[in-house]
């Protein structure tokens, strides 16, 4: 579904990605792990069209490199960004509905709301609340919900567990598994190695902007050097 071919990108003057090649097949959960500053976020931003890149990004075989980010989003690639980037002064309801804004004219565009409330019942209870007043976990749920409103085919999540109470982290990961079961392909960037590997099919290990290892999630999880480098055990 998604192929990166020797992708390079600079971020704030630094070479953040160097010759990354990566594949995501339809229906998979693929995770990209690596230490802070390895280029994980830049990788997702590059695919979402937020960072200037060299190399090719193919989605369903079409080269999408250089497209504006809203066009990439309309193709069905959606990024839940680091820091969530909600619209804090707008209500939960408005944030969700804006996810379907690009589909104006489609009478069924608010249909994914049912799915969102099913996944995250808390959001349904806080519809009138401003997004900025939600807790970290609720904000993450809203960010994922807003992305689901765009009806993505490839959902990219950047550190969904960041800044969230441990109890809610499991809920978020469980939601990711359920979203995949609905046919949405997932590309997950995470610092929490073991949780990410436990739900992923395949994994890539990133180090200073390069892929240093890739394989099935089980292979990566079993690899001593990865555990040493990123778990400190």
């Amino acid at each position, binding site marked *: 579904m998604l192929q990166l071919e020797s992708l390079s990108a600079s971020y704030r003057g630094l070479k953040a990605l160097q010759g990354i090649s990566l594949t995501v097949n339809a229906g998979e959960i693929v995770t990209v792990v690596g230490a802070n500053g390895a280029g994980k976020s830049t990788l997702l931003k590059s695919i*979402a*069209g*937020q960072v200037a890149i060299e190399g090719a990004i193919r989605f369903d075989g079409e080269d999408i490199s250089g497209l*504006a*980010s*809203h066009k990439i*989003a*309309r193709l069905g690639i*959606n*990024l839940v*960004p680091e820091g969530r*980037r*909600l*619209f*804090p*002064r*707008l209500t939960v309801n*408005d*944030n969700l*509905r*804006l*996810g379907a*804004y*690009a*589909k*104006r004219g489609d009478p069924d565009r608010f249909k994914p709301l049912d799915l969102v409330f099913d996944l995250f019942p808390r959001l349904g209870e806080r519809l009138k609340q401003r997004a900025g007043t939600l807790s970290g976990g609720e904000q993450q749920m809203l960010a994922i919900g*807003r*992305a689901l*409103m*765009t009806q993505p085919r490839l959902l990219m999540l950047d550190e969904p567990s960041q800044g969230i109470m441990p109890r809610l982290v499991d809920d978020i990961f469980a939601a990711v598994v359920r979203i995949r079961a609905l046919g949405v392909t997932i590309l997950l960037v995470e610092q929490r190695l073991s949780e990410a590997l436990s739900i992923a099919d395949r994994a890539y290990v990133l180090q200073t902007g390069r892929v240093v290892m890739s394989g099935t999630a089980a292979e990566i999880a079993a690899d001593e050097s990865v555990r040493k480098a990123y778990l400190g055990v």
Partner: protein
Amino acid sequence: MTAELILQTLLSGLLMGLIYALVAAGLSLIFGLMDVVNFAHGELLMVAMFATLVLHNLLGLDPLLLLPIVAVLLFGVGMAIYRLLIARALSVTFNTGMVQIFVTFGLAIFIRGAAQFFFGGEFRSINNSWLANKTVALAGIYIPLPQLAASVVCLLAFALLLAISKTEFGRALEATREDREAVGLIGIDRDRIFAIGWGMGAAAVGVAGVMLANFYYISPQVGANFALIAYVTVALGGFGSLGGALIAGIVIGEVEALSALVLEPSLKQVGMFAIYLAVLMFRPRGLFGRL
């Protein structure tokens, strides 16, 4: 000083203040949306006034009938300014602040020069409009009809802007204002939103220009003074606040009218600039501004 005189002054301050408010609303809308100060805002007002004058002379239509035409025209001008100039200024990677200031500043000088070239510098006016020189008398107070109509139209324009902000497009506008990167991630074309925002800001000042053309002199320089007042109004009301622009516009109108009454007409702007200094010193974000 009679009670009638004071009432008369307060009323004319209110009527003028509503026009200031709409001019300021256009400026505030653009600034709030994308943090770009439109230094050519007064020139857009002047363009609207000349457009009204030219179309009035050409087609023989009354300014009131020209209102929708000029509003749409200015909407197009605003969108064109964004697409041709501002979008490019936003995409530069160095000295962004300077570029954004000088692009609209240069545009202002260009528009003023072009008006001077085509129309000359003399003052013009529209004397044979439906409303010209008509007044209504109310309990001893005389209300000039053109001013009254202008303030009513400005209030209606405010109501329209408020109604737009409640629509789905209004939400997208607010979302773009809050996070211009994040809207792209959910498929919203922020360039389109910005362009429409410029269109709306220019149309707002365009509406004010048409109504002003009914009773105010028209010259290439006319915009400068209104722009200055608009900056004061926006600073008082708070950048990006629609309600703030409305209230601040009325306050500025009243302060101007009362300054002229209490001091003397030539000092009528002293009061409003004193307010501006006070705002800068004590409440830089304005009455209703967002931090």
